[in-house]
C-alpha cells in the first residue's frame, strides 16, 4: 500500500475545513438523518471523478472528456428507450444495460485513442460531440419517469454505487494490471522496454473509465429521477477538475481512488458552502474559478519552490 500523496493530504485538509464550515453554516442539511440524501447529491460528481481517473492514470495525455456526455447518453437511453418506450423497469436489465453501454463507450474511446492513436483529448472530444449530439436527437426535451428502486439510489441507498466502485477498484488493485497501468503512466517507454503491453493497458484504462461512467450515469439518473439531455456534458470539466484537485496527476502515473473521490467531495462541499451564502450566480462563478485556481496552486507550491532554489 502506497502512502497517501502530499497532494491528496492537502485535499483532505481542505475537505475537513470545508466540512466544518458546511456543518457550521447549515447544521440541518448535514445532520446524520440527511446523510443518505446528501451523499445522493454528491454521488454523480464523485462517480464522474472516479470515472475520469483511470484514463488519466495511463499518462501521455490520456484523458477522457466524454465522461459527462456518456453519462447523459446512458441516462437518456435508460429512461427514454428502455423505461418509457419498452416498459422495462427491472433493475436486472437496467443496471447491466447502463454498465454495458459505459463499457462499450469506453472501448470505442480506448480503440480510437490507443489503437488508431488519435490524441486522447481529440479522440474523446470527438465522442463528446457524437454522444451529446445523439442524446439531443434521442431526447429533445427532459422526460420524467425513473422507477422507484432507482430513485432510492439517491436516498437511503446512495452509498451503494460508491461502494460498488470502491470494491471494483480494490479488486483491480489486486491484479498486476494496476501496477502496469501506473508504470505505463509514469514512464511509458520504460514500461514498454520492461515488456508491458502499453497499448493494451491504456485501452483497458478507457474501458474501466467507461464502466465507471455507467455507474455514474445510474447515480445521476437516480438523483434527477428523469432523463435530461443537457445535464451530462456539464460533468466533464468538473470531474476532471475534481480528480486534479485531489492529486490525480494529469501527466499520468500518480493518483487513485482516494484522490479522485476526495477532490470531488471538495468541489461538492465548496459548491454547497457557496450556495449557502445566497450570493448571485455570478459571484458563485467567480469564487468557484478562483478557488479552483488557488487550491491547485497551493497544492503545487511546495514542489515548485525547492526545485526553483536548487536550479
Amino acid at each position, binding site marked *: 500500500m502506497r502512502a497517501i500523496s502530499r497532494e491528496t493530504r492537502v485535499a483532505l485538509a481542505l475537505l475537513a475545513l470545508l466540512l466544518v464550515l458546511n456543518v457550521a453554516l447549515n447544521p440541518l442539511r448535514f445532520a446524520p438523518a440527511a446523510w443518505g440524501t446528501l451523499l445522493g447529491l454528491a454521488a454523480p460528481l464523485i462517480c464522474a471523478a472516479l470515472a475520469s481517473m483511470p484514463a488519466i492514470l495511463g499518462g501521455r495525455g490520456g484523458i477522457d472528456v466524454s465522461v459527462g456526455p456518456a453519462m447523459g447518453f446512458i441516462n437518456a437511453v435508460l429512461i427514454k428507450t428502455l423505461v418509457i418506450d419498452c416498459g422495462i423497469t427491472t433493475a436486472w436489465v437496467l443496471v447491466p444495460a447502463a454498465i454495458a453501454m459505459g463499457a462499450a463507450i469506453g472501448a470505442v474511446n480506448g480503440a480510437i485513442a490507443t489503437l488508431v492513436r488519435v*490524441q486522447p483529448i481529440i479522440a474523446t472530444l470527438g465522442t463528446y460531440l457524437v*454522444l451529446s449530439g445523439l442524446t439531443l436527437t434521442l431526447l429533445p426535451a427532459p422526460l420524467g419517469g425513473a422507477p422507484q428502486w432507482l430513485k432510492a439510489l439517491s436516498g437511503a441507498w446512495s452509498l451503494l454505487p460508491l461502494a460498488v466502485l470502491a470494491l471494483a477498484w480494490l479488486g483491480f488493485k489486486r491484479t498486476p494490471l494496476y501496477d502496469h497501468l501506473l508504470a505505463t503512466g509514469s514512464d511509458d517507454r520504460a514500461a*514498454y522496454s520492461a515488456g508491458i503491453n502499453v497499448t493494451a493497458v491504456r485501452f483497458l484504462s478507457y474501458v474501466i473509465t467507461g464502466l465507471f461512467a455507467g455507474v455514474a450515469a445510474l447515480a445521476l439518473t437516480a438523483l434527477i429521477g428523469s432523463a435530461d439531455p443537457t445535464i451530462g456534458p456539464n460533468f466533464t470539466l468538473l470531474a476532471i477538475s475534481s480528480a486534479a484537485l485531489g492529486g490525480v496527476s494529469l501527466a499520468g502515473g500518480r493518483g487513485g481512488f482516494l484522490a479522485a473521490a476526495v477532490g470531488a467531495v471538495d468541489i461538492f462541499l465548496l459548491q454547497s458552502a457557496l450556495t449557502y451564502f445566497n450570493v448571485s450566480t*455570478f459571484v458563485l462563478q*467567480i469564487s*468557484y474559478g478562483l478557488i*479552483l485556481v488557488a487550491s*491547485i*496552486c497551493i497544492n503545487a507550491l511546495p514542489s515548485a519552490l525547492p526545485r526553483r532554489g536548487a536550479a
Partner: protein
Amino acid sequence: MRGAWLRVAGAFLVALGLHATGTVLIEGYSEPFAIRAQLVLSCLLAVASVGQTLVVIVGGIDLSVPFVIGFANVVAAQLYGSGWPFPLVCLTVAALAGGIGALNGFLSAALKVHPLILTLGVGTAVQGAVLLWTAGFPTGSAPEALTNFVSIGAEAWIFPVPWLVPATAALLVAVMLVLARTPFGRRLYALGSNPVAARFALISPVRMWTLTYALSAIGAAVAGVLLLGFTGSAYADVGQPYLFQSIAAVVIGGTALTGGQGGYLGTVAGALVLTEINTLLIGLGLQPSMVQAALGAVIIGLVSLYGRAQHVRTTI
C-alpha cells in the same frame, strides 16, 4: 519536416474536397455570397485559434480562449457604448486580456500546474466577473467601421470580401515569419520539443509561457471584438463554440498536442476544414444536434487519416 508540410497540404486538400462535395450536393453552395460567408467564418475561427496554436507549440493548452473571447466581446461593447473612443477601447481590452493570459502562463509555468485546469479556472472566474459587471445583461454596440470590417457583404478595395480576409492573410504571414525567423519562434519550438534541453540553452520557461499565453489571450480578445462587429451585439457566451473548435483546428492542421511542432498555416487549413464541414452538414438539412454528432465523427476520422501519434516503440 516533409511530413509536416504534407499534413498541412492534406488539410487544405480535405477543405477543397469538402467544398467540391458541397458544390455537387447542395445547390448554391459555391455562390459568391456563400463562399464569402464561409471565408469570413473561417477567418474568425483562424483568428481565435492563433493563440491556441502558439500555446500548443510550446507544449500547453488554453481552455480560457472562449471565456476571453466573451470577455473582450462584452467589455468592448460596454466601453464603446458608454462613449469611449474605439481605439482606446481596443487598447484597454487587449491590455486586460494580455494580463489574464500572462497570469495563465506565469502560474502554469512557475508552479508547474497543468494548464488545462488552471486556464479553465481563470476563464471561469473571468466570465463570472464580466457577468457580474454587466449584471448578466450586456449592453453597448459596435462601431460601424468594425461592422464593415467583418460584414459578409462588405468589400475590401477592389476585392469582393471584407477587410477581415486580407487582414487574416497578413496575420498568417506575420505569425509564420515570427515562428520561423525570430528568436521568439525558435525558443517556442525548442521549449515545446524538449523543456529540459531548452533550460540548458538558457530559455526561461516562465518568461516564455507568460509571453505565449499573453499572446494567446490577446488573439482571443481580437476574435471577441471581431465577433462583436459580426453579430452586432454583446454576448458573454459568444466564445463557447471556439473552446473545442480552436483545439480541433490546431490538431487537424497537423500540430501535435505534445508540443514542439506544427505551425499556423496548418491551423488556418484546419479552420477552413471545420467551417466547410459545418456548412456542409447544415446545408444537408441535418438538425443542429445531428450536426454536432457528425462533426465529432468527422473530426476523429480526419485526425486518424493524418494526425496520428507515434507508437511508443518508435519513441525509445
